[in-house]
Every structure is written in C-alpha cells, then in structure tokens.
C-alpha cells in the first residue's frame, strides 16, 4: 500500500516536471518535444541536488519498467494506414528495414569501437 502511494505521488511529481518542460518549449520556441525537455529539466534538478533520486525512485522505476506498454496503443494506429500498406507496403518495409539496419550498425559499431578506445 505504501509502495502504491509512493508510485502515485512520485508519478504526479514527474508529471509536473513534464508539464514544466512542455511549458518551457512553448515559451522559448525550442526544437524539442515537451517530454524530452522535461527529461533534461529533471536531469538538471537531480544534478543540482534540488531533487533527490529517492524522491522519484519508486514512481520512475515503475514507469520505466513498463515503458514498452505505452507504445502498444500508439502502434495500433498503424491499422489506419491499411490502403497505403496494401499499395506500397513491401517497398516501404524494405526501405525502413534497410535504413534501420544501417543506423543500428553505424551507431553500435562506432560507439563500441570509440568507447573501447576511450576506456583504455
């Protein structure tokens, strides 16, 4: 029960920081979505010691454990592109698969190489 309450109020705190991030983006016309700005803002709060990691540990841990869940309802939206998929779905799939593979390869291999060197 205590754990549950912690998750609720800590999620509320994360939500407040998220809204602050969205507000900053709107006011300063940043090229960022509100949630990413909120993440950077929260990082600054943690780094400066204003927010203690323990204050968001339970709520943040819970939300991150189930981070994948949020992408299910969003992905269901793909069903509204049925006609386009039937017409040129295979071409698009091939193009997206190829470019995802190249991106993963470039970042993965270059970071592993550079990271290995800079750790020595």
């Amino acid at each position, binding site marked *: 029960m205590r754990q549950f309450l912690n998750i609720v109020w800590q999620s509320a705190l994360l*939500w407040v920081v998220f809204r602050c991030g969205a507000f900053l983006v709107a006011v300063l016309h940043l090229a960022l979505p509100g949630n990413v700005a909120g993440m950077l803002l929260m*990082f600054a709060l943690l780094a400066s010691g204003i927010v203690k990691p323990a204050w968001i540990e339970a709520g943040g841990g819970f939300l991150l454990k189930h981070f994948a869940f949020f992408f299910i309802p969003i992905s269901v939206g793909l069903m509204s592109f049925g006609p386009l998929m039937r017409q040129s779905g295979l071409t*698009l799939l091939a193009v997206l698969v190829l470019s995802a593979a190249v991106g993963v390869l470039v970042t993965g291999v270059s970071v592993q190489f550079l990271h290995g060197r800079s750790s020595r």
Partner: protein
Amino acid sequence: MRALLFACYLLVTVGAYLVTRRIFLRFKYPLLNPVFLSTLAIIALLEASGGSWEGYQPAKEAMTFLLGPATVALALPLYKNRSVLRNHALPVFAGVLAGSLATIACVLVAGRVAGLPRGVLISLGPKSVTVPIAVEISRLAGGEPTLTAAFVVATGMIGSILGPLLLSALKVRNPVARGLALGTVSHGQGTAVALMEGETAGAMGGVAMALAAVSTALVIPYYLPLFLP
C-alpha cells in the same frame, strides 16, 4: 455502450501487454517483442470485431497519458550513469550523430531508388525521431505529418526487433553501444527494449533518443534536400 467499449479496449490492451511481456521475459527473443505481438493481436481483434482506430482512440489517449512522465523518469537512469556521459562524451555524441545521418541518408537513397514520390520521401526523413518532434520536422520540411507518424511507429517496431538481433550478430555487447544504437534508430520503442536489457543500456537509449531528436531537427533543413529529386 461507449464506456463499456472503452473499458474493453483498456482491459484487452493491458492484458495483451502482460501476457506478451511474460512470453518475452521467458524466452528473451527479439522477435517476441511485446509491443509487436500485442499490436498484432489488438489490430486483428479490432478488424475481426468490426472495431476501428477511431473507436479505439479514447482508450489510447487514456493509456498514453503517463508517457510524458515516463520519459521524464528516464532522467533517473541517466543521472545514475552520468559518469559514462562525462567520460565518454565523444563516442556518445559522435555515435548518435553518425547513426542519425546514416539512417536518414539510407532511407532517402533507398526510397528514391525504389521510386517513392517526393512527398513520401520527405515524410520518411525524420522517421527515426520520437513522434512529437518527427511530426513537426516533417511539417516544416513539406512532408505529410500523419504519414511520418506511421513511419516513426513502424521504424520503432522494426528497430526494436531487428536492432538487438543485428547488434548480437555483430558482437556488439557493450551496453552503452547497444543502448545508443537502439535509441538512435528506434527512439522510445528502442529505449524500451534497451531498458529490458539493463539500466545502463536503458539510460543510453534515453540519451540517444534526445540527441537524435535535437540533431535531426537541426540538420534536416540542409541535409534533406541533398537526397531529394
């Protein structure tokens, strides 16, 4: 009736997630990705029962309400891994930027070779960036935002299934490299997979997602025209 349908969609989605998550954690095989399996199951169910995306949307809005706070929570693993950022700033920045530029160039060149129309090519450009930014980039570049949103989701799915397989095949085992690669190409969905691999990989997924979004938004106005007919 509407409330009943809403409750049904909520239950079905949460249920699908819980079941597919168990399957994934049991076998740890990327093709059993919970988002992929649940999405397939729900779309099949909606098609079979005569439901529509419009009907499902209220439930989607309710279920994604906490995505913003969850993204903010990524600051926590990021903070715990701040020494990685401090000590390896060059590999992190260079790796994400290189991956973003490579995946954009590749999708445009391949799309052009495949004969896709100009409007579709522009909409494909920001497909590796998190939805809210990708939509905005696409609109500014003269693309079709809804089409971009669909490409972003499809890329998220493809990268989160193919990414771990490819990284393992290439013997990329360093969690920093794996997290960055998944976040660069597949934004939040890749980060979700990275989080299931471990805390460091998850933190790097969040870093990559933010860096890729910002750098793509900054370079696209100059970079995109190079590849357009």
